[in-house]
């Protein structure tokens, strides 16, 4: 592009970039580096910090609560990811059909996505309540005595998973639907001529050509899964007995309730590394199963 040159252009560049640069420097890079530095100290906000080497990392990797929260997250992902993918695929394939009312359904299924986790969690706390909850009332109609979901040692995590699937389903559906709409009609027409069944079309055309969207959903779900916080904070506060505690909740507790800044920072870097590793491994593996040529 042409336009002014020399010092006037330099002024423009500086003027236009300065706000962003300052913002990212002050709110991203400097905090990031400080957090790395703090993670090697025993700072408690009150007394002077001293260098403790890898102690905080060692602690975080051996601490029972940290490990518990990590295994909780693996459990969460193991339940959440397959459910949201299967249900998302089902809804997206139905919404991909040419029939009336599709736009209406599409608008409706997205509503839980736009709502705040806090509001949604409070509603679900009521729905899942042991005495006045609608879910247990409906179960009682078919003769099942429901558990006290969110206070139940076994059922708390499945309840968190279920509500998360409910909240994110619209998002996953819309992404998969967009992927399906990108697939050329020609493939399906050729398949119909060859006499393919609906299942064969789905299995041999839709699913392979949808792998880029599936890949994206899986990556996003893993990243969000490791950062699980809002819904747990409101619905169970990590309970009962740490059954639903998460990594971010541990970081929050250590930093802002116990003032253990060093440990919290080390945990946040471990979280970052996990997310980074998962993404990197997925990127490597995707060559094996994601099909980008259409």
């Amino acid at each position: 592009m042409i336009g002014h040159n020399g010092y006037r252009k330099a002024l423009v560049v500086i003027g236009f970039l300065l706000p962003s640069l300052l913002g990212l420097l002050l709110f991203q890079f400097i905090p990031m580096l400080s957090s790395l530095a703090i993670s090697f100290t025993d700072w408690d906000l009150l007394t002077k910090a001293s260098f403790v080497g890898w102690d905080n990392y060692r602690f975080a990797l051996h601490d029972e609560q940290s490990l518990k929260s990590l295994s909780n997250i693996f459990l969460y992902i193991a339940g959440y990811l397959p459910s949201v993918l299967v249900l998302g695929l089902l809804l997206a394939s139905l919404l991909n059909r040419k029939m009336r009312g599709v736009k209406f359904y599409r608008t409706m299924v997205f509503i839980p996505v736009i709502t705040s986790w806090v509001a949604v969690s409070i509603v679900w706390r009521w729905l899942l309540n042991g005495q006045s909850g609608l879910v247990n009332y409906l179960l009682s109609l078919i003769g099942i005595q429901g558990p006290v979901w969110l206070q139940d040692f076994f059922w708390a995590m499945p309840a968190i998973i279920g509500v998360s699937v409910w909240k994110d389903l619209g998002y996953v559906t819309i992404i998969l639907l967009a992927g399906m709409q990108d697939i050329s009609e020609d493939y399906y027409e050729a398949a119909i001529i060859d006499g393919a069944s609906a299942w064969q079309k789905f299995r041999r055309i839709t699913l392979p050509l949808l792998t880029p969207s599936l890949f994206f959903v899986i990556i996003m779900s893993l990243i969000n899964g490791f950062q699980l916080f809002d819904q747990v904070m409101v619905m169970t506060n990590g309970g009962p007995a740490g059954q639903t505690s998460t990594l971010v909740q541990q970081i929050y507790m250590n930093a802002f309730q116990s003032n253990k800044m060093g440990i919290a920072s080390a945990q946040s870097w471990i979280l970052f590394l996990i997310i980074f590793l998962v993404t990197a491994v997925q990127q490597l593996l995707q060559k094996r199963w994601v099909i980008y040529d259409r």
Partner: protein
Amino acid sequence: MTDKHMRLKNSLSHIILLIATVILIFPFLWMLSGSLKNSLEVVKMPPDLIPQVFRLSNYVEITKYFPIYTFLGNSILVAVVTTVAQLLVCAMAAFIFAKVPFKGRDAIFFCFLITMMIPTQVTMTPLFIVFQQLHLINTYAGLILPGIFSAYGTFLLRQHIMTIPDALLEAAFMDGASHFRVFRSVVLPLTKPALATLSIFSFMASWNNFLWPLIVTSDTGLMTLPIGLSKLQGRWATEWNILMAGNVVSFIPIFLVYLFASRYFIKGVTMSGVKG
């Protein structure tokens, strides 16, 4: 495939989609219905689907528990200012990254992209300490500032500004327009769809943000809706009708924005999804 076969399949699809829609939407209707019940009816078994008397007074009574309308005002202020500022800041940087080359530009842009990978949890602890030093805890500035700068927003707008033909901008420069003039009168109008998408996303993110406002506010008068609601439910855990009234207050604004701009919500999601 026969016509009859097709119709059967369509009806089956409708049934499944209807069931899914009911499951996804019902909690919101239940929330609305609960917000209009009195404290006895709200725990009654078997429950009434529709309240016997619509108790609109819950929406007044809730202020005895918590200043919910102050939270509402705070949320609107924070979300609107964050969104407007973010659009401007991101668009300015995006314009340079897309259309004004200079030495070292790509290196700077690369640094922008790196920050997209850093989770909030890494930066929040030091950021809290910095804000404490600057006396920004319990201020609107403390709530708003970190939300303004978005590498993702800059990236999104850059991709769109890059599609504007250079010839168009050159013509404007030939006519003697300044960079600022070109940015305001040519680039911004041509980037409107992307700006609309980003503004919806930025507004929604700010409206629903929980972790940072939770850290940066302890003063009730400055809390946004998610923080206020979470405190409200922490203290009055089972006053369901009051809690639901609070939820409805927080739901309606974002729902209205969604109704008027659902196109952009869905476009924004698919844009980040397919090209991501």
